[in-house]
């Protein structure tokens, strides 16, 4: 599918000073104070510039962003169903391929960017995302991860961490830890099975320059790319709305989040701390983990320890599942 219709080479920024002051994600939205996904949107928009078409599967960044007549997008934007971000992007990319080939569209292939939440990316939207990756459409699929179905009132998703209190996983006498499952590993879903994909990366709002450069690198590749972006949610995770970036940094310092790139089969890691802090240091600031006992925290620590042996790769020794006897 990817043909020589894109010659752009978006430059890498060395510091925030080199990033444009122009905004294509402009004021007018109704996201919460301290919203991580809104910050993601702002940074991604700075990275892509205006020759872009953004797609917004249903989620916070659809509902809170796009009040009719005051949507904050200065580039073409289209709502998709939460189910079909990857499929609608495929159709748009296919349309541009044929329109450019026939001379009906004179410009370069625009950056086609899907901005899906965790549900729209790896739960109900997984099929369409995977098919877009498989068919090799020249589009970027971004999963902004606020670790729950936040727009509908914080329900568990496959990205929600073990032990989180969500409105579908309330802790109680019979289920003291709340969420009993460990999350899906989103980048692995893409890396593991899609021959047309050459670039997958994770990034965090804690490191905006890194995030912007990864978006640009992804767009410079011809063909599909996938980014998993950590986007803390004060409302859903129940922490002080002034501390979004601080929480994101703590996630990296404790190994709850790892920034890395996977480029044509090679992993490189960014922002790895010299020594990881215990996960408790990250969890204690969030009321969603407030009910957990030391045994639960130990279980979480064991999961993270297993993951950190080779971040971004399958866990060599799986941790105990919810239906297994201790």
């Amino acid at each position, binding site marked *: 599918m990817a043909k020589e219709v894109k010659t752009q080479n978006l430059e890498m920024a060395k510091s925030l000073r080199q990033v444009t002051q122009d905004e294509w994600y402009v004021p007018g939205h109704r996201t919460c104070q301290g919203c991580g996904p809104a910050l993601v949107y702002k940074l991604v928009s700075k990275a892509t510039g205006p020759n872009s078409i953004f797609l917004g599967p249903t989620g916070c960044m659809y509902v809170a962003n796009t009040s009719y007549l005051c949507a904050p997008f200065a580039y*073409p934007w289209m709502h998709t169903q939460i*189910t079909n971000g990857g499929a*609608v992007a495929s159709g748009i990319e296919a349309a541009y391929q044929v329109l450019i080939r026939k001379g009906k569209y004179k*410009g370069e292939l625009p950056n086609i960017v899907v901005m899906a939440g965790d549900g729209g990316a790896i739960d109900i939207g997984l099929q369409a995302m995977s098919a877009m990756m498989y068919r090799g459409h020249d589009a970027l699929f971004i999963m902004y991860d606020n670790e729950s179905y936040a727009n509908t009132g914080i329900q568990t998703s496959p990205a929600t961490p073990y032990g989180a209190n969500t409105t579908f996983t309330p802790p109680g006498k019979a289920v003291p830890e709340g969420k009993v499952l460990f999350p899906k590993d989103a980048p692995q879903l893409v890396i593991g099975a899609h021959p047309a994909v050459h670039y997958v990366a994770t990034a965090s709002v804690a490191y905006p320059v890194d995030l912007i450069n990864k978006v640009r690198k992804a767009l410079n590749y011809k063909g599909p790319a996938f980014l998993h972006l950590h986007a803390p949610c004060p409302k859903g995770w129940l922490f002080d709305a002034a501390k979004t970036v601080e929480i994101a940094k703590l996630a990296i310092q404790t190994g709850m989040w790892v920034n890395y790139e996977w480029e044509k089969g090679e992993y490189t890691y960014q922002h790895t701390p010299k020594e990881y802090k215990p996960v408790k240091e990250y969890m204690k600031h969030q009321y969603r983990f407030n009910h957990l006992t030391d045994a639960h925290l130990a279980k979480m620590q064991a999961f993270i320890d297993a993951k950190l042996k080779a971040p971004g790769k399958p866990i060599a020794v799986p941790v105990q599942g919810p239906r297994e006897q201790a």
Partner: protein
Amino acid sequence: MAKEVFYSGCAAAAYGAKDARVEVISSYPIRPYTGIMMELSKLVANGELDAEFVHGEGEHAQVSIAYGASAAGARAYTGSSGVGVAYAMECYSPAAGGRLPCQMAIADRALDPPGDFGSEHTDVMGARDQGWIMGWAESPQEVYDNTIMYYRIGEDHRVQLPQFCCQDGYFVSHIPGRMKLEDQKAVDEFLPPYNPPHPLDPNRPVNHGPQIFPDQGSAINVQRAVAFDEIESVIEEVVKDYNKQFGRKYSPFVDEYMMDDAEIAFFLQGAHARTARFAVNHLRKQGVKVGVARLRFMRPFPTKAIQESLSKVKAVGTVETSTSYGGQSRGGNIIHETRSALYPLDKRPIVTSFMAGLGGEIVTLNEFYAMAKVLSDAVKTGKANDSYWMNFEKEVLDTHK
């Protein structure tokens, strides 16, 4: 040059799409419509059609890909059958509400359970209220013609709506018929390139489908309703032009056979109308004044044309070929809107319905004779049931079986 061919409905649809110069095609296999995509994939592979052929991962994706392409400014084509049509249900309203005039070919098929390949209109009739244009062809020729006409109707700026271009599974999709492929140049003259008013183009940024507040909803609904007000005159215009350019004789909405002096009538859509006309020929020899009115569009439902046609007779039997379990008639769908269309008339016929051709069963000549008997009796007694399940109720047993 126009060319005489002997094509199935599937091939006819594929060549209709080719001559309409579709630009993005999204496929997924399910019988019986699959034949359309098999044919189109060959045309693309051979270089006879310059289009992107996207292998969707399901019908839900097929429709999503098609309306995405349509939003970006390409003429898009997809299709399905049976449970596949049902699987894509979420995507129909976004396509129609987004005013994205992609086309979906339907070769209809019964829904599960049990697994049944046979033709039944139930699949896409379930999507009739999603804001798409919808109508059935009765022959490969009409499939080809409708494919081209529907694009012009749907892409008209007064309309801007997607289209279900339907044909009966197997009866039309898999039985070849003599037909004419028109000259490409003439088709190009009839069907101008797709020119959407607000494509997704970075040079002219627009937002499609932002979230609204409940009090803004009705204004948007009314715009979709207004499109359906406009559409009847657009259809009349397009069908007239097509007839003129290619020498066809389609009436826009209701195709009549021996209706002028008829006392009773079969009212139906799709290929069973052809059997109905054979039955009418036979019944006329026996002195039964019967006619056939064939519905060419289910959406828009052509109330005025139906009133004009069916008010000529004393009793009408809708032949359903789809189910509406628990509905008013305890049978099918067409009777409900037909009765509703005729209700304002001072002199209106008795309307009953016949549940026939379900699961892909052939509606036999004998069944049509049995229906005619019920309708003639209704004229005499002034009464009829709401519905008759053919071969299951004593009034409509096919004694020849």
